[in-house]
């Protein structure tokens, strides 16, 4: 996961937050041995001095700009400090800047930059780890959860099944979400979003991302300092179903 996160950070040129929780972070767990990572590292769109010199030629006469999206994914090319090409340097700053990294206070420049970032966000939906979905054509309800709630949900589903309540399951592994989450929620009557925090934060994010489906989402959130239990999840769902 750390390797994927670092690769994504370089590919998307953005910080990637890796979420853990107290249960995973402070207890000793036995896991399968780690497998040797076969994928090469991904440094993303980095230009060497030579690639920068040949950029125009390779991009239909388009001059390189630090924030210029030349291939439609919202991710521009960058150079690293120390690149021996006088065109390579640029000033990274938080205030308004043009596609060529020059200072600007023009509203249309500011807005265009945010539109590009929005496009990058959409690109990210297909690069981050996809959810793991277990469909159930006979079920009327679905469950969404994440992280260390997984074993409790697996057990709760088995218990509910015994009581005649079948369920489908989607384990979210990253944000931003892709279309598979919309498709999953659309397919069932009610979706229980099970999470180990006080406010139902993931349910809130899903409602904001999919406002037309917000009415289907039921937040099951609990935070008492302990991992979620299968019993609590089962009781909460069984009380309604």
């Amino acid at each position, binding site marked *: 996961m750390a390797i994927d996160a670092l690769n994504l950070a370089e590919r998307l040129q953005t910080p990637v937050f890796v979420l853990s929780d107290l249960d995973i972070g402070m207890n000793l767990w036995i896991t399968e041995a780690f497998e040797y990572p076969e994928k090469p590292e991904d440094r993303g769109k980095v230009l060497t001095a030579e690639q920068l010199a040949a950029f125009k030629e390779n991009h239909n006469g388009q001059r390189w700009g630090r924030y210029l999206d030349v291939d439609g994914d919202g991710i521009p090319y960058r150079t*690293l400090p*120390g690149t021996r090409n006088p065109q390579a*340097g640029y000033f990274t700053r938080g205030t308004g800047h043009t596609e060529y990294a020059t200072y600007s206070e023009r509203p249309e420049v500011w807005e265009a930059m945010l539109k590009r970032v929005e496009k990058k966000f959409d690109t990210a939906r297909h690069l981050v780890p996809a959810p793991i979905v277990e469909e159930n054509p006979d079920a009327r309800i679905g469950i969404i959860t994440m992280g260390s709630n997984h074993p409790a949900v697996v057990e709760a589903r088995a218990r509910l099944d015994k009581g005649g309540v079948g369920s489908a399951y989607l384990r979210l592994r990253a944000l931003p979400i892709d279309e598979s989450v919309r498709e999953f929620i659309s397919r069932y009557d009610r979706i229980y979003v099970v999470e180990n925090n006080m406010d139902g934060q993931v349910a809130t994010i899903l409602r904001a991302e999919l406002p037309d489906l917000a009415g289907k989402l039921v937040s099951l959130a609990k935070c008492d300092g302990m991992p979620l239990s299968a019993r609590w999840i089962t009781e909460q769902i069984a009380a309604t179903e």
Partner: protein
Amino acid sequence: MTATPTRTPAPKTPKVNSIGLEKNAYKGGESTLCNGCGHDSISSRIINAAWESGLDQTQVVKFSGIGCSSKTPAYFLGMSHAFNSLHGRMPSIATGALVANKTLTGIGVSGDGDTASIGIGGFKHMVRRNVPMVYVVENNGVYGLTKGQFSATSDKGQKLKYAGVNNFMPLDVCLEALAANATFVARSFAGDAKQLEALLKAAFSHKGLAILDVISPCVTFNNHDDSTKSYNWGKEHEIQLHELNFVPSFEQIEIDEYDDEREVQLHDGSWLLLKKLGEDYDPTNKILAYQTLEDARRDQRLLTGIFYIEPETPDFNDLLHTVDTPLALLTQAETRPSREALKHVMEAL
């Protein structure tokens, strides 16, 4: 009598520097600071010092935090990479970048708010680690960008139009640096072009972190005559500890004999010459540096020059034992542990 190196004069005012560039090539964008701002003078001195030192801008990286001072890397060395970081977090960003590529020349520009208030923790730890960089504090004793509040270096009793009277003791950037084991501590005044340029050149040649506290008047919020950060006060009260001269390593050195100079050879072979002006000051004596700074603070004197220097102390990359190739340029074949290495770790668990 001390054997002292003296310089053979360089050819008269060359149009191009040692790497064939004109001075204009070292400029940046147009400044958006107030007319007469001390920070713009410092940018001009950096341009001059970098040009005369023949710095390759593609191998320079500029850093800053937030504040008027931190806008200035946009106004010099336009061909270099630069990163305008979060408020007070320039040292962290710079440390990472200069470990990722230890061959780069780093210039950090910060202000008294960015360094002495929100960034004091990062500042002290960067000093402690001796990260190889020139760290310029453009010190005007006021928060200019937010329209004139007191900063951590404002004098006790100082009056400002909107903020009233400051009741707190100031922090002294040079004393803070010394206490954190700095290897190069100097102070200058934005209005003293000659000295500031000599100090900047010496700072570029220093192996390790060079702290340059530059008193830089804020013409809009803190330039009245009773402010110790004003042009008039600075001009009237500046006392040079020594007259400074810097001889870069690429200029020919001849040894002559003088008894009123003290010389320090820097790691890259350059020489720093300190001509005695009244006091016989030894910039390698740390206790003397503390005493001198404390006396100047108590007596309200703007003492400028090099207070302390340790030319041979290992820098951060030496202490980390990093390989010769910059980490950022290592190939995957060089950085990826073998299949056997992972197997060995797994078996050990």
